[in-house]
């Protein structure tokens, strides 16, 4: 298996019958593989020539929003858009739920801890707002997304105010308003997700 000397070994035995047979076998293998490769490369080029048609068919089958996200394929499918939206929304939902649980556990007896939970919630909500503002929503979804961003901002503002409370009573006095604001955010999130799920009515691929 000593490769560097294998070649030399073959070369030295070049005149010997066994060596010739071996080099002949090597030539045959190389020729066969080269032929196979030529065939595959030609097949590949032929296949590549039809990619425009397949591209259109694939986009029509998958549902597509053009030129939103992908620098490579020039198209974002409904699934891709949904997946990306989930990758932004799900961590925020988890984080906010954890913060709300921490707040609920402390709202009656530990002001500092409850305020810390609310501050963390504000951070998550603001980060969510920034992510939503950057998200490439399709034109059809953009107004719903705008409503979601506004609802989220309103909740973040209210939560920030709540976090500045000076007593536990004042803190709890915000609960109802925050609940309403959260319900508004949830409603807008549902609407946004539903809008993202729906396929465009016509193929928008340019």
């Amino acid at each position, binding site marked *: 298996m000593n490769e*560097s000397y294998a070649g030399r070994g*073959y070369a030295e035995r070049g005149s010997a019958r066994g060596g010739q047979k*071996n*080099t002949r076998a090597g030539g045959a293998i190389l020729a066969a593989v*080269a032929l196979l490769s030529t065939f*595959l*490369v030609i097949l590949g080029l032929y296949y590549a020539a039809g990619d425009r048609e*397949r591209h259109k068919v694939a986009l029509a089958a998958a549902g597509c929003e053009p030129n939103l996200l*992908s620098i490579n394929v020039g198209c974002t499918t409904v699934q891709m858009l949904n997946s990306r939206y989930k990758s932004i929304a799900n961590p925020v939902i988890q984080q906010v739920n954890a913060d709300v649980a921490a707040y609920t556990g402390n709202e009656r007896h530990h002001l500092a801890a409850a305020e810390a939970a609310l501050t963390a919630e504000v951070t998550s909500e603001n980060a969510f707002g920034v992510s939503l503002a950057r998200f490439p929503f399709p034109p059809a979804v953009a107004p719903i997304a705008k409503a979601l961003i506004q609802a989220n901002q309103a909740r973040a503002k209210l939560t920030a105010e709540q976090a500045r409370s000076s007593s536990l009573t004042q803190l709890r006095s915000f609960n109802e308003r925050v609940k309403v604001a959260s319900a508004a955010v949830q409603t807008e999130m549902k609407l946004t997700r539903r809008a993202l799920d729906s396929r465009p009515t016509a193929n928008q691929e340019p």
Partner: protein
Amino acid sequence: MATTRDYKRVAPARGHEPDPDPGDAIGTRNEQEGTADGYEPQQRAAKNRVNKWMEGRIKFGGTGVKRKTAALVLLGAWGFLPLFFMLPSLFTFNTNTIGNSVDDTLGTGAMMNLFLCLLITPAVTLTGQRWFVPLRRWFGIMFACCGIGDALGAAFFDDFAGNPFAKLVEHSFTLLGFLMVLLAIPLFITSNNWAQRKLGRYWKRLQMLTYVIWGLLFFHLATLEGFGFERGSNGSGFAGDGDPIFHQRLYQYCACSLFLLTLRLPPVKGWIAARQQEGRNRLVYLSVMPIFALFLFGFAFIINELIFKGTHSFVENPSSE
């Protein structure tokens, strides 16, 4: 001391070029040995000319840098690219990016580095030049780093259920990937001159594990993506650009491996050596050209995947494709 000196005398070049490709451990003659390989004087002279030219210096920022060093840095930079793409998410500990794209970016990067590492021996066989041989160790190390990074990312940040170890073994493709990483660890640890000296002849046997990893990669990709390709919105190899077959990782593997494997077969190497001895280099290049074209075909889509997913990872906006 004496043992070390003796070893160096027996295997002078190997002492400087430990790397994870055993085939390559083999092709580590120094230049003096290279002159005795039976090539025609003219060919030998041409190869030596390139090697000697590479030893020359170019002026860079007031100091002289060896051409070989500059070329190795430029070529070797590709090996670091996958890790470079992941750096921002590592610095900011962006678990969303790490969880979503580490497998694509580092997994594809590991595959690219493995193929580049395995490419060195066929390149030496074909060209007879040796100045790029140090890249083999570099690409081998980068392969191990990408593979280990991929496994760590999958263990701690993937969506699969269970503890980190369970995440690595609960699917057949993750289990095979984990096995590959386990095999890469000893190769990574022993990819230095000290380990090579200490292990002596066992070092080469240990490095044979690279071939096992190469084989396991086939099964890893087969269980990950299967033999089919995307039809409509189902199957592997995202068809956004209308070329699902080219984006199928298993096919990329096969296209690249055909070249790497064929040029390692002893009869083929013998035939090449015999033709080179006869001074018929053109025939060799002509015969190998279609196989290399197929290699490039497959490799281009690996690079495409790496750059596409990598740039998304770099801006911490992981691709959902």
